[in-house]
């Protein structure tokens, strides 16, 4: 589903990723881990084409990213649900609308929007915050709105960047459980985190990065 072949990424003179090869199978749930600045976010950005690889090949959902036309980029992204490390919620619209955006962009019928958004918000236990604005939410609540937005459109791939960075251990465990349930229904999930607790005893594959270098693979 997602394949990296000798991928390198340089920012100015700095190397963010060096010759990374890694793949996630269709329906698999995998993790990327490594210390801060090791290149986890960069790897996810390459997948949804917020950045372009300088070397190597990336294939996502049978699309060769280096050969993708500009007009195909939205097509690629509509297959992916993203939980951004910095959430990227829109402050001028309420929680409901923030989640609904993912559906509106995909042209989902207005009649289905409401029930889908409510279902997604229920999954992250924020059904009662529907009418709040992002600025009136705690960091953890904002993060869960971001998760709801990523899952609401039922994409084939979910990329989650530190999705439990702002929540307590119990909530965190709940979020991971939710992702596992979604994965069990066939969605491919790639989750970046420096928190080993998340994949400990999960039985899932973990890619380890260190200063942009491949630092081994393990089963959590």
């Amino acid at each position: 589903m997602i394949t990296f072949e000798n991928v390198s990424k340089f920012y100015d003179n700095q190397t963010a990723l060096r010759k990374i090869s890694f793949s996630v199978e269709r329906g698999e749930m995998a993790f990327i881990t490594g210390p801060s600045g090791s290149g986890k976010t960069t790897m996810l950005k390459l997948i949804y084409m917020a950045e372009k690889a300088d070397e190597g090949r990336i294939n996502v959902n049978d699309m060769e990213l280096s050969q993708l036309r500009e007009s195909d980029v939205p097509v690629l992204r509509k297959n992916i649900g993203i939980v951004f490390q910095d959430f990227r919620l829109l402050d001028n619209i309420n929680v409901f609308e923030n989640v609904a955006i993912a559906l509106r962009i995909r042209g989902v019928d207005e009649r289905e929007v409401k029930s889908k958004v409510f279902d997604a918000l229920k999954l992250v236990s924020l059904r009662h915050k529907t009418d709040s604005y992002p600025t009136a939410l705690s960091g953890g609540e904002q993060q869960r709105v971001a998760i709801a937005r990523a899952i609401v459109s039922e994409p084939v791939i979910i990329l989650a960047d530190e999705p439990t960075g702002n929540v307590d251990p119990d909530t965190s465990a709940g979020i991971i459980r939710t992702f596992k349930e979604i994965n069990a229904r066939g969605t491919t999930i790639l989750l970046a985190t420096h928190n080993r607790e998340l994949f400990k005893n999960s039985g899932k594959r973990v890619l380890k990065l260190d200063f942009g270098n491949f630092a081994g693979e393990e089963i959590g």
Partner: protein
Amino acid sequence: MSMSYSFRLAFQSIIRDKWVNLLAVLTIAAGLLFTAVTVLTVFNVNLITREIPKKFSVNVYLKENLQKQEIDNITATIKKEPSVENIKFIPKEDAWKELKSSLKNTEYILEGLNENPLPDTLEIKLKKDSINPDAVKKISTMLKQIKGVSEIEYGEKFLSSIYSLSLGIKTIGLTLIIIMSAGTLFVCYSTVKILFYRKNREIETYKFLGATKWFIRFPFLIEGATIGLCGGFLGLLGLLILYYFVLLKVGSTFPIFSSFVFPLNMSYLLPATGFVLGVIGAVIAIGRIRY
């Protein structure tokens, strides 16, 4: 993409940035109002100057004692000239009667003149597009050379001053119209550009979530169009107020202004221009969206 959603986004954004937008609407209204006033002035000056050809004529005074045959020859020669619309022969007796009747109570001026001193005259009307100082001068030089013609007379000074006045007003008007339209366009452009910069991160988020270019563009186009349209309607309102409350009042004291024509059936042009400028401004401001 749902249209109603784009409209909702656009109107939310218009309300959110109401002060920037209000300022833009006012500026556009002022620009369009000023442009419209200029257009109307040029239009009216044009109307007046277009009346001139009907009254304008070149008088060809003939030498004394020409035979009818000779006069017919002269008339035929002049008629061949492509810029001549028609020719009227005024015998000196008619001219004399005319002069006398116009002097009714002051006939004593003519006392002592037993004989009619006036010459036979050919009154020439020119074609509309030949009535400008150069063309008239050219034809009068030509006429002078015809055998049997003694003198040519036309309102030379009058013609050239009216002509340069209308030309001047047209040139100034056109320049103003171009400057004002460019200004209005620029206001739309910068308003949308400001909104666009302000929403840079929001737009980037939309892109990352899979929005197509049109999904992103559409609300901005609606915003630009709305701002332009509002500016246009406000400008029209200003123009109507100016016409009905100022011009007509002034017209009752200065009759020149009361003949000022206001083509009401063209008033849709103001909002329409605002709309078009708003959309063009938005298109330029958004520019190319890249992924």
